[in-house]
C-alpha cells in the first residue's frame, strides 16, 4: 500500500500543528499507522510553519519527500506557494483564502504574489485546487479559530474517509463547549459552499 502524504502549511500561531494532529490521529483512528512531524520553538514566532503527516500500514519516515504530497493544505495564500514543491503532480491543494503579508514585504525588495500568480502556478501541476473562504465562514460563525475545521471539512470532501471518523477525532481535540461550532465549521467546509474558485 502506498502511503497517503499530507503537508500542512501556515504561519506560526494559526493552528497548523493542531490541524495536523487531527489529520494524523484520524489515520490512526481508521486503523492505519500514522506519523507526523513539525518543528516547534523559534520557527513558531510568526514564522513559516510546515507540518508533515503520513498514513500507511507501516510508516517509516515521518517526513514526506518533495513531489509526493497527495494533499497540500495551506492556511495562508503565500504559504501555500512556499511549499508547493511538496505536491505530487495531480495532487489536491486546499488553500484558505487568507493574505497575511510578512514584514519583509513592507520594503520594496519582496512582493506578495497575487491570487492569480498563485493559482496559475498550481494549475500547471494539478486541476484539483480548492480555494476556501475558511476565515469568512469562521467569522460568520463568530469564531475565527474554527477556520481550521473548515479546511479539514474541505479535505474530508475529497477523501474516502467518513465524516464520522473525522469528527470523532476533531471534536475530541476541542473543549466540549466548542464542539458544536467546530462540527458546523467542518460541514460548511465539507459541503463546498465556500468554494471561491477551483
Amino acid at each position, binding site marked *: 500500500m502506498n502511503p497517503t502524504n499530507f503537508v500542512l502549511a501556515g*504561519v*506560526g500561531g494559526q493552528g497548523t500543528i493542531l490541524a495536523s*494532529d487531527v489529520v*494524523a*490521529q484520524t489515520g*490512526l483512528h481508521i486503523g492505519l*499507522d*500514522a*506519523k*507526523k*512531524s*513539525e*518543528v*516547534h*520553538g*523559534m*520557527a*513558531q*514566532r*510568526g*514564522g*513559516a510553519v510546515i507540518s508533515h503527516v503520513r498514513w500507511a500500514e507501516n*510508516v*517509516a*519516515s*515521518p*517526513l*514526506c*519527500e*518533495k*513531489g*509526493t504530497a497527495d494533499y497540500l493544505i495551506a492556511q495562508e495564500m*503565500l*504559504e501555500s*506557494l*512556499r*511549499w*508547493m*514543491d511538496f505536491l*505530487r*503532480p495531480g495532487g489536491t491543494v486546499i488553500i484558505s483564502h487568507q493574505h497575511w*503579508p*510578512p*514584514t*519583509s*514585504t*513592507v*520594503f520594496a525588495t*519582496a*512582493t*506578495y*504574489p497575487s491570487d492569480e500568480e498563485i493559482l496559475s*502556478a498550481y494549475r*500547471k*501541476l494539478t486541476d484539483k485546487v480548492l480555494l476556501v473562504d475558511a476565515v469568512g465562514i469562521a467569522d460568520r460563525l463568530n469564531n475565527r479559530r474554527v477556520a481550521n475545521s473548515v479546511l479539514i471539512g474541505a479535505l474530508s470532501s475529497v477523501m474516502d474517509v467518513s465524516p464520522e471518523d473525522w469528527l470523532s477525532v476533531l471534536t475530541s481535540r476541542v473543549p466540549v463547549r466548542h464542539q458544536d461550532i467546530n462540527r458546523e465549521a467542518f460541514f460548511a467546509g465539507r459541503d463546498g459552499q465556500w468554494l471561491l474558485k477551483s
Partner: protein
Amino acid sequence: MERVLMSGNEAVARGAWESGVEVATAYPGTPSTEILQNIALYDDVYAEWSSNEKVALDTAIGAAYAGKRALAAMKHVGLNVASEALFYSSYTGVNAGLVIVNADDPGLHSSQNEQDNRQYARFARVPMLEPSDSQEAKSFVKLSLELSEQYDTPVLLRMTTRTSHSKTAVTLGERQSLEKRPYLKDMAKYVMLPALARNRHDVVEARTAQLRQLAEEIEINRIEMGERWLGIISGGIAYEYAREVFPEASYLKLGMAWPLPEKLIRDFAASVERLIVVEELDPFIEEWVRGLDIKVEGKSIFPLVDELTPDRVRNAALRSGLLVGNGPPTDRHQPDTDSLPLRPPVLCAGCGHRDVYWTLNKLKLTVNSDIGCYALGALPPLNATDTIGAMGASIGVAMGMRLADLEYKNVATIGDSTFFHSGLPALASAVYNRTPVTVIVLDNRTTGMTGHQGHPGSGQTLSGRRTELISAAEVSRAMGVRYVTEVDARDLKGMEKAIREATDAGEPAVVVVRSVCMFESQHNREPYAVIAEDCNGCTLCFRIGCPAITKSEELDEKTQRPKARIDPAMCVGCGLCFDVCARQAIEEGAEKVLVT
C-alpha cells in the same frame, strides 16, 4: 493496551513515569522543552525547572545517589553547560538509575550550532541509546534506567529535533512502583578527590569493556537481512529515512549509539557486498568502523552539514550512483520559491524587546546579545545586534570588547531567564574587577522563546505554584552594582536616558527593562490606526519591524510611496509606532475597557 499518538518528548515523559522516575529536572531548550512539561503532568513525579542545565543535572545526580530514579533533560548545547556534571557522574556512577535526555538539533531549527552529542558519550565513557520513534523513546527510557542501575553509570538518551517533535504511535503501560534503594556513604565512590578519582577511572574503563560486550548482545542492536548488495548501518531518525529510500537493503539498526559492537559490525560487514553508514551530522559510526579496518562509505555520499531528510538521502544516493533512476518526481517541477517574500520568525506585535532595540539603534551602540526571543532583534529591519554566542555569553563578550577599548560604546542585552541561567557569574566578575560594562536585562518575567516557562525571576514554578520572585535589579544591587535602574519598555525617553547614563557611568551598570510578554499579558489600549491623509509613506514605522504594520494599496501623491496600514486583527495596542511616527499620522487606540 491503548495505542496513542505521542511526540517523542511526550513518550520520554511517559517512559519516565512508567519506569518509576521520581525526580525530573531540566532547563527549557528547544527541542527538549516538552519533556519536563509533560512529566509535570504526572502527580507522582517531582519535576522542576532548574536555573540552568548544570544545576538540573547535579540535582538529578543527587536524587539518584539518594536512591530514587531520576531524569535530567536538556538540549544539545545545554549538555555543554552540564558537561562537568556528566563527567564526574560517569566516575562516581549512580545508585538508583539516572537517564540524561539530550536533544540534538540537526538543521539548527532553534540553536546556535549543530554539534553531534554522540561525541559526549564516547568522551565521558557513558552509554548512549538512540530511539528512532516515540515507541522506542518510551521503551529506551526504561532500558536506560535499568542499564544505569545494572552498570552503575548515568545513561544518555539521544533525541533529535525530529524524534522529539514527530508524533508516532505508542502503546501505553502502567507505572512501575519501586522501593527506594538505600544510600550508603561510600567515599571511594562518591568523593572525587584526585587519589580516589584515579581509582574510579579504572572502574570506568572496566565498565566500558563490559558495555562493549553488552552492545554485541542487546536486542536494540539488530540485523535485518534484506538484499545483500547493500548493507546499511544506521540509527535514530536516519534509520527511518534510510528505510524509506532503500526498502530492500539489509540493515544493522543500532539502538545503542555508544559503545559500538565490534563483532556485530564485522559479522554484518562480512554478510553484505557494500557497506554504508547513514547517519546525521558527524561520521561517528563511520570513522569507528573504518578504525576496525573495514571498508565503509558514509559522508562521501551523504551530507555532514544540516539535518537529513528522506529527500536529502535519496538525492545524495542518486548523485553518487548508489541509487539509479529518477526516484520520486522531486526535481521535475521545482517552483521558484527563492524569490518569495521570506517569513522568518519575528518579535510579536507589541513585544517590549522591539522598543529596546529601537532605542539601541537610535543610540548607535554596539550590542552583545544573548539567547532568547530578543535574539530576533538581530533580524531585519532592526539589525540591532553585533554578537550572539551562547547562553550568558553577552556579558563576558561585552566586557572583553570594553576592555579592548575603554571608549567603546557597547551594551550586553540579556533576557531575564538567561540572566539567572548564566548571567549572574559574569556580572559578579564585572563587579569584582570593576569592569565598566552595561548590562540591559530584558525582563518580561518568562522564558519566552521556548514557550513561556517559569524561572527564578518569574515567581512561578513548573508545577504552577507561586514562589519567591528574585528581582534582577535587587540581586544586581546585592552583588555590588552601584548603578541599577529599572524602566518600562514603553517609556522610550526614560529608557534612552537610563542607557546613556549607564554607558557613561565608567563602572558596572545594570538597566532592567520591564515589559510584558504578549503570550502572558496584554497592553491596555485598543488597536492603533494610520491616519491616511497624514501619512506620506516615509517608512519610519516599517523600520520597527512590527508584523501588524504593512503597506496599504494607497500611494502618497507627492512621494508615490505606499502609505502604512495597521492590521487591527494583529495590533495589540503597544503604541511604539505612535511614538516613532514623525508626522503624528498614527491614531492612538482607545483605552481598553476592562471586563470583569
